Every structure is written in C-alpha cells, then in structure tokens.
C-alpha cells in the first residue's frame, strides 16, 4: 500500500513538473545567491571514535587499551594526542584539522550514535542512512527526503553522490545523481541521437529522466569546464578525488545542495595501531582530505556544513589481537563557517558501570539530533518539513553545533 502511494506520487511529481529542463535557467539565476550546502561523509566500517577523538583525560581509556591508546598530549616522542580542551584530543594524524578547531569551525559530538543496539555493519549503516533506526521498511534516505521537502525544483544536481551506486542516504524519489567523477558523466560522442530518442519517448518517466540526464550533462560541461584543477592539495586517492569533485561542483554553482561521499576500511579488528599503523594511515587520508576540502571551498565554507558519520563505534577495550571489536557510541564531526566549534554532547565516561552493555561507549546523543540541527539550523527546513525528513522522530534537544 505504501509502495503504491510512493510510486504514484513519484510519477505525479514527474508529470506535474513536465520534462523541460527549466532548472537550467533557475540555476543560472541562482549564481551568487549562496545556496546552503551540506556535505555528508560516511566512514564505512565503524571508525574507532575513541582513537580518533581521544578522551585523554579519562584514566579508564588508558587502562582499557594498554597497547593501542593514543598517549596524552605532549607525552611521547613517537607522537601523542593533539589537545583540544584539556580533556579531549585529536589523533596526531588529524593535525591538518587543528587550524579549523582553532578558528572555531570544527565541532565534535562525542558519545553519539543510534538508539538501536545492532552491531551489524550493514544494519547500522542502513539505519543511519535511512535515519530510521530499527525500521528496515523505510525506502528512502534522509538526504533525499531533505531534497523532497525543501524544494520542488527538478534539478538532479541538487543532490550528488560521488559514488558508484546511489548511497542509501540519497535514495528516493527526488532526483539525484551518483557519479564516479564529473568528467565521466557523459555519453560518448555527446549522445545527440540518444537525446532525441528520449525527448520523443512516449514514456513520461523515461522522458523526464532522460531530460534530467542530458540537462545535467550540459550544465556540468558548461559550468564545471573540461580541464579543471583542484584548488587545494587533496590526497591522491579515490576519497581525495571525490572531495575535489564535490568542491568543483560547489564552486561551479550548478545548484548543489547535498553532496555525499564515503571512505571505507575502518574495521580494525586486528592490529589497529595507535599513533602509527592502520588507523593512523586512514585518519591521515581522511583529515588531509577534509582540510583540503575546507580550504578549496574558500568563501563557500561560510554556507557549508560538512558532517562525518560512521555506523557505530568500537568496544572501549582493545581485544586480544591489538584491535577493537564492534561497539556502540562514536564521534561525529561537523565543519563549516556557521558551526559552533567545540566538543559537544554529554560524556558518559568509560567506567564499567557507565558503559553500554558493560563494554562500549554509551550513546548520549542520538545521531538524528545532529542531523536535525543541521537540516533545521543550517539548511533552514521548517518544523513541518523536519517531521517528513525524520518520520516519527522529534529531537528533544539538539547538541548546539550550529550557530543560532
């Protein structure tokens, strides 16, 4: 029944909006009007939040992790946590983000996560991306629902994932694109004959999608140019390239409101490492990428929020293989010009009695509270809209990551 309604409303929306790529004109008019931008970055595989944002003021942290803890600031010659506020510190590989902290553009929400206790990667990712923990029947993602409620504009470049397949977060009936790269998004030879075919298609859904595709291709060719060079020093990795493409789209003013990309390989059950090793390598790429993105966005950072997330945290104690197993609470980062810097959220502590199921960092902030604050405070969605972006959930309080 729900499905049927969903299908119908999707088709109706497409029909009522017609098939002329009219967004082109509007996108052009919007140049200089500073659209708000949200960039979501998923750390797939469950990053170890306790070694990323280090609670160096917590004695239990060092007791639970005899071989993999990040030393207290200034402690070791090999490297140590970069102090933030006397209690928390950044992993030393995250030094590129320290300038953002210093100018109050970096907010951290610790002990953040899902009310659902699953320790399954795929369930937890699914719940975070649908933003309906515990409910698998949800068909669309929270970012797509944002696109659905915020505007009727039929521009697939409003929501772009730099990813091979459409991530769950952006799935849904609002048009959005998943692309490997800007230059790859095109039909060999220009596709004029294909375009003519789709323009005269009797099928309204295919006519609309074809129209979107060719319009988006043209916009990208005109606005993004062909010999683009990134404006900052990104890591030479797929993740670095994806971030560079996001900045390219943001600067090209093609109507981008939501961008998404991901970085995997955080599932360090064995030999996680500490100030060096696996997690240090991943955090280095991650942080250099984010710092380059912030620098590349330049003035656009004022209208941008970058949010990082991971499906759950890892166990408070290290395991028998100098790694960490699946846990619960984690840390999210929020970066942007309109961000209230600092470490937010209530810290539950790592003493046994305060741990979730006796083993993991407890969750004191629902991840949807962070999403809600960004969607409302930054993207400007009304209370009514919020109830559609986050069905049957109302944030009782927000962590305060966005400046009022």
């Amino acid at each position: 029944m729900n499905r049927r309604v969903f299908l119908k409303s999707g088709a109706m929306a497409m029909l009522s909006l017609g098939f002329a790529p009219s967004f082109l004109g509007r996108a052009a008019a919007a140049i200089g009007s500073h659209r708000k931008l949200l960039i979501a970055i998923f750390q797939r595989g469950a990053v170890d939040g306790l070694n990323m944002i280090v609670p160096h003021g917590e004695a239990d942290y060092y007791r639970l992790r005899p071989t993999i803890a990040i030393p207290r600031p200034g402690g070791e010659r090999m490297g140590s946590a970069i102090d933030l506020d006397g209690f928390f510190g950044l992993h030393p590989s995250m030094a590129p983000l320290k300038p953002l902290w210093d100018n109050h553009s970096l907010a951290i929400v610790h002990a953040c996560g899902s009310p659902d206790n699953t320790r399954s990667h795929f369930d937890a990712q699914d719940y975070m991306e649908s933003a309906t923990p515990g409910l698998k029947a949800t068909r669309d993602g929270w970012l797509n629902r944002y696109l659905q409620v915020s505007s009727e504009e039929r521009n697939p470049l409003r929501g772009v994932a730099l990813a091979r397949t459409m991530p769950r977060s952006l799935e849904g009936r609002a048009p959005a694109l998943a692309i490997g790269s800007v230059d790859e998004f095109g039909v060999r030879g220009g596709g004029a004959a294909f375009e003519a075919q789709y323009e005269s298609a009797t099928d309204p859904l295919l006519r609309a999608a074809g129209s979107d595709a060719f319009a988006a291709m043209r916009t990208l060719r005109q606005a993004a140019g062909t010999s683009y060079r990134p404006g900052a020093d990104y890591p030479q990795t797929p993740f670095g390239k994806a971030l560079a493409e996001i900045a390219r789209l943001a600067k090209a003013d093609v109507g981008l409101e939501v961008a998404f990309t991901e970085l995997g390989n955080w599932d360090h059950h064995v030999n996680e490492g500490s100030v060096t090793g696996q997690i240090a390598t991943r955090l280095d790429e991650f942080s250099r990428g984010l710092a380059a993105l912030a620098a590349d966005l330049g003035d656009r950072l004022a209208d941008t929020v970058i949010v990082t997330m991971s499906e759950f945290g890892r166990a408070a104690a290290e395991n028998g293989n100098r790694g960490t197993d699946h846990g619960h609470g984690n840390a999210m980062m929020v970066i942007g010009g309109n961000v209230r810097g600092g470490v937010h959220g209530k810290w539950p502590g790592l003493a046994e009695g305060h741990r979730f199921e006796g083993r993991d960092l407890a969750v004191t902030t629902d991840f949807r509270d962070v999403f809600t604050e960004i969607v409302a405070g930054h993207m400007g969605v009304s209370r009514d809209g919020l109830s559609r972006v986050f069905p049957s959930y109302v944030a009782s309080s927000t962590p305060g990551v966005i400046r009022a």
Partner: protein
Amino acid sequence: MKSRVFTGFLIALVVAAAQLSADAAESRIPDPESRDDATITHVLNRLTFGPRPGDVDKVRAMGLASWIEQQLHPERLDDGAAAALLPPLDTAPASADPRELRRFARQQIQSLASEKILRATYSERQLQEVLVDFWFNHFNVYADKGRTAEYLAEYERAAIRPHVFDRFRDLLEADAKSPAMLFYLDNWLSADPDASERIDQMRTQRRANVFGRRPFGRLGRRVPVVPRPQPNQAGNPPQGKKRVRGLNENYGRELLELHTLGVEGGYTQKDVIEVARAFTGWTIDRDGTFRFVPAFHDSAEKVVLGHKIKAGGGIEDGEQVLDIVASHPATARHIAYQLAQRLVADEPPAALVDRAAARFRTSGGDLREVVRTIVTSPEFLASTVRDGKFKTPFALIVSTMRTTGATVSDAHALVQTLQQMGEPLYMCQPPTGYHNTADAWISAGGLVSRMNFATRVASGNMPGVTLPATLPPGDLALRLGSPEFQRF
C-alpha cells in the same frame, strides 16, 4: 413477418458485434492460443530474459500454450549445452587465515555472478532462471557479510533453484535451514538467554575436541558449533568477561515481514519474539551444514499468530512456525502479489492477485500452480500491460546479450558493468533484495550508464562479448539504448 424476424436478427447481430468489439476494446485480451508476434514477444519478454533471434518463430511453430507448459516443467528441457558453458567453482580453502578467506570470498562472488549471467543468457530453462532471480531477491542474502560467501553457491543451487516450482512450504524450509540464511540473518547466534550455563558446560566438555580457531572448518567432525556473538571478519571472538548471548530477532522479523506474511500481514512485535524463540538452536555445524542444537533451544511454550506451540519441543518448534506462516492467508496474498508484480505489472491487477492467492491456498502453496494461474491469465496477456515493466540492470544486460545473439566467452566485464549500474550481483546489503519495479531503477545517472553500455556493446568494445557477423540493419547502439529497450 419474415422481414421482422430478419430485422430482429440483424439487430441482435449488430448488438452482439458491438458487444464483442466493446469487450475487445476494453480489455484487448487475445486468445491464449494466439500466434500473433506481439503476444509471443510479450510472453517471451516476461517469462525469459528476452527473446533471441528466431525465438518468436520457434514459439509460433510449437504454440504458445505448449511452450508455456514446457517452461513450467524445466526438468523436461535438456539444458546440457548451457551447463557446459559454466565455469567450475573453487572450493573454500581449508585454511582459517582471514585474508585467504576474504580472497576466496571475493573470487567466489565474481565466479557466481559470471555464472548467473551465463545461465540467464543461455539456459533453455528460462522461466526457472527468471524465478531463481526472483526468489533469490525474495530470500536475499548479502555475500559480503562475514562468511556468507562461503555458503552462497550451495544456497542458490540447493535452497532456491530446486524449489521454484515446488510447494512454498518446502522452499521456505530449505531456506530456513540454509547456512547462508542462518548466517546472514544471525539466527545461528540466537540462543535461549537462560541457556548460558548449559552452553558453558558444553563448551568446557568439548574444548578438547576443537580443532584450531576456526568457528567451523570443513574437518568433518560432527561437533555442534557454539554460537558466539557477532564474530568479526578476522574470526576472533569479542572481548568481555561474560559473553553476550541471547535471543536474536533478526530472522524472526524478516521471516514474517519479507519472506511470508508481508509488512501489513497482521503480526505483532510479540509474534516476532515468539518466532525467534522457536528458532533458537537452529545453527550452523562445523562442517558448514545446518544443525539443531537442543542446548540453545528455548523449549518453553510459545504462541505464534494465535497458534499455541506446546512446551518441551525441539527442532519441531521452528518447523511448526514454518507450517503456520506458510499456510497463513496473508502469505498467500503476499506471495501472489509479489509474483504478479514481477510477471505482470508493478501494480498488479487486484483481481488477478486475488485469484493467484486463492490458487495458492487451494493448491497447498504449489508455486507451479500459482505461476500458471498468473501466466495464463487474461490480465497477463492483456496488451495494456505490455512494455509496462522496466528492466533491472541485470535484465537489461542479459536481454542485450540475447537480442543481439552475442557470444559471451567471459562474463567478467558484464559483472563489472552491473556493479557500475548499481546492481552488483549477490551484493545487495538489505534483506529486501533488489527491487524489480520501475521506481527503483529509473534515474538520470542510470540512463547514462545504459546508453554507454549500449554504445560499448554495439561498437564491439565489451571484453568477452562477441557480436554475430551479421546484425539486423539500423543503429544497434540506438536500439539497445532506446527508451523502448529499457522496458519489457
């Protein structure tokens, strides 16, 4: 007098003719014995992965009804030629090295995906393969979750394919007892929370028998596996003084929501828990086969959908749940709806779903009879539903191979293309499986990949794919990338 009779006769004739043409205009239902090409093409589109050159003529010659009957009995069709084209599969390594297991898993997924494309392209048992794809998605498992990939080949071969024309109850049990499903939906870990002490005693007794660290090796010892909570990919058990062990609702919930009754089937959270309790102890043995371990089973009384399951039961508790859900009217309706959605229309005609659901009930869940009811119905043959379905990337790729009469000597590039198009085979994470409805697949980005795929195939630039020397006239890329070819 004479003329009055004649006039009356004329009027009757005109009325009858008008009635006939009104009927025809309304439903445009052709005779099931029809031999017109449009009808034959439609039936081939839906019951196969697309007609090959010459298929329409072949079906016209043998008659549509007998061709359908043949497809409903795949065992009567010799499929040796297609089977000979399938590459041999590797066997799982005996080693417990997690890196080696990961490498094997990746390779196994690739091989099975190639095999699936080749089978769909070349098998004579086309309706069977269409339904294998349907039922795999209905009972989806995700190959990248833990050790699922190791159980995957057997899953499709033994749990799904032999049962697509069987009784639903038998398919359901084969699935419930398959290691792939037991692992994917975590039932192998599900235990009576009060059984902890019993289990600890068993573990102590058995410690001497355990070979190495591998949770279940192929060592041939019939030692019951001890469920451990959330094994990670490296295979090491989680930390913590006391192991968390208890009821896992994952399978119970999906059994009701996706596999049988459907999300609106009228079950409660209490039913989910009762079902999960009934399946405690259904786990995976060390040799990778199904095993029931009484020590993990919650044998207290359960009430499932109003049916009482008496205390003191063992494996039969779960089997009784399968009886209850397989014969539930909501299941008949849910399965009928889903099959009609795949075979007839994204929003299947209600009257047809009713008849198919009724056939499900009267035949005791005989899937051959349910499919027969659907594919011989006027609704299925009506011209109004023709070209109303949108091809999934898998259906598009296979129908492209079939319509061109291409030779696929190596399917790896096609497997790759499916990844890029967003339908990596065996890699659908959520238990819903891939959807077969248009709303899930029509997108701007998707169309661009389809046009590029068409161009690549038509220009002979798809590795492992060779086009025949002579092709029908016209621009092949434009035909394969056209809006019409995306539909079926």
